[in-house]
């Protein structure tokens, strides 16, 4: 069903209101719903629920990202920010001040980039700093190098003068080597 307002986008919201006995019904797309200022209806819908999904730490330790985070990390603006020489995660580019502001890390490598900030926080939060229990099933099986196998096939193809197959294998090898880099 198309949006009744713009007639272009798919309608995903059903809206109905009755004011002084006059009922208004609309099927709207998210954009028009926002323009109609119906977004509030959506936000309000869950306000009465202390939801399973909300993090108990965040909700228990007060506003924002929890007072523990604020106490330990959130307040201080690192000098490096002011000097423009701020530390950045080389993998995802998250800066130290972004981390302090949001309380969220940008990628798995941030845990080592910002270990000096995160480790004491994690220890305080969990009362522990070492994981126990489920780990990835088995260390990855040392597999025979797939590129090496393709090279052998390529050699055989060249020897048997199957150049079409050889070209395909060559491209495949290039693609895999590119991925590995």
């Amino acid at each position, binding site marked *: 069903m198309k949006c009744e307002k713009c007639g272009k986008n*798919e309608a*995903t*919201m*059903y809206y*109905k*209101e*009755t004011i002084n006995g006059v*009922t208004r019904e609309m099927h709207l797309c*998210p954009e028009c*719903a*926002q323009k109609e200022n119906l*977004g509030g209806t*959506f936000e309000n*819908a*869950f*306000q*009465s*629920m*202390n*939801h*399973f*999904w909300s*993090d*108990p*730490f*965040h*909700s*228990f330790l007060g506003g924002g990202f*929890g007072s523990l985070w604020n106490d330990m990390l959130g307040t201080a603006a690192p000098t490096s920010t002011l000097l423009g020489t701020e530390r950045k995660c080389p*993998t*995802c580019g998250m800066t130290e001040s972004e981390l302090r502001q949001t*309380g*969220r*890390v*940008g*990628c*798995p490598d941030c*845990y080592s980039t910002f270990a000096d900030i*995160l480790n004491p*926080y*994690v220890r305080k*939060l*969990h*009362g*522990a*700093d*070492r*994981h*126990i*229990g*489920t*780990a*990835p*099933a088995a260390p*990855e099986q040392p597999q025979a190098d797939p590129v090496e196998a393709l090279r052998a096939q390529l050699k055989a193809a060249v020897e048997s003068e199957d150049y079409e197959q050889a070209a395909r294998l060559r491209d495949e090898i290039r693609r895999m080597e590119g991925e590995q880099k």
Partner: protein
Amino acid sequence: MSLFSLHGGFTGLAASSRVRLARNLKGYPFRLTPAQHSEIADKVFSALRGNPTIGPEFEKKQIIPRSTEASQLVEEHLISPELARNGGWLIVSRDGGVSIMVGEEDHLRLQVIGTGLCPKECLETANRIAALIEATLPFAYDERLGYLTACPTNVGTGLRASIMLHLPMLTATGGINQLAGYAGSRGCAIRGAYGEGSQAVGGFYQISNQITLGASAAELTDKLVETATAIIDAEKKAREQVRSQNEAALRDRVCRAAGTLRSAYLIDTGEAIQCISDVLVGLQMGLLSGVEPQVLYGLEQRIRPAMLTGAPQERDQKRAALLRETAQSLRFA
């Protein structure tokens, strides 16, 4: 017959159990683009579909931001309000017992739900599904910190095990404040399931593990079950105490609630939850019969505002109709 339906005991006091595991795929940043969400959803879906036994049970849905369907999935506890707001993907078993959100704060939020007290069983299923995904899609894992998550509060096991408890008498007798302290001392957090802040409408509470690192998921779950069991015992004692003090008043309250559910023509969410709460007490204490507690817990979900469309008064009318239908089979003991 559904493959993942898990049922536990104490159904009169423990409404439901759920376990969530937060996982991220290796080689991606935590914050993804919509295209990457879609790519990951595809990969996870095909990893599950590759399994001949459970694969056919799953379906994949795109979550359109702020859509009516998204709101309903929130009320069904299948997705978080954040996912409903921002959009993403949901991979869900046909019975809703297992669901995987793609596009939340972490790449994957795997959830298993059961009725009654069964977090251990939920964890076993969650571990099985996670292992199945991990066999083809390695997760971000660190030898020291365990499974890595976007928020340090979830790092390690990525576990959030939770039980919905019905504790109206402890609420009435004020014992709940001590329980919060008790739960805290056992590494668990307890809070009202509905209502603003610490106020719990109808005496419904959610108890969950607070830490995720330094103990195995199984140990954390065991501790949660022990803590919940102790709280359930306390609620049972409180109920018997109320009965011994003034059985007539208790019976009056329970039967009035049953009467309201059987005959109300307009009822708002707050009153409905309160009446369901009182009727549940009556059923558990043998003052009422004829309806299974699970039916009422299910009903309690279906009468929430987002599940009923229309203007407020229209919703009150639909809600009352649903409740009347179920309450007709209530019998007074």
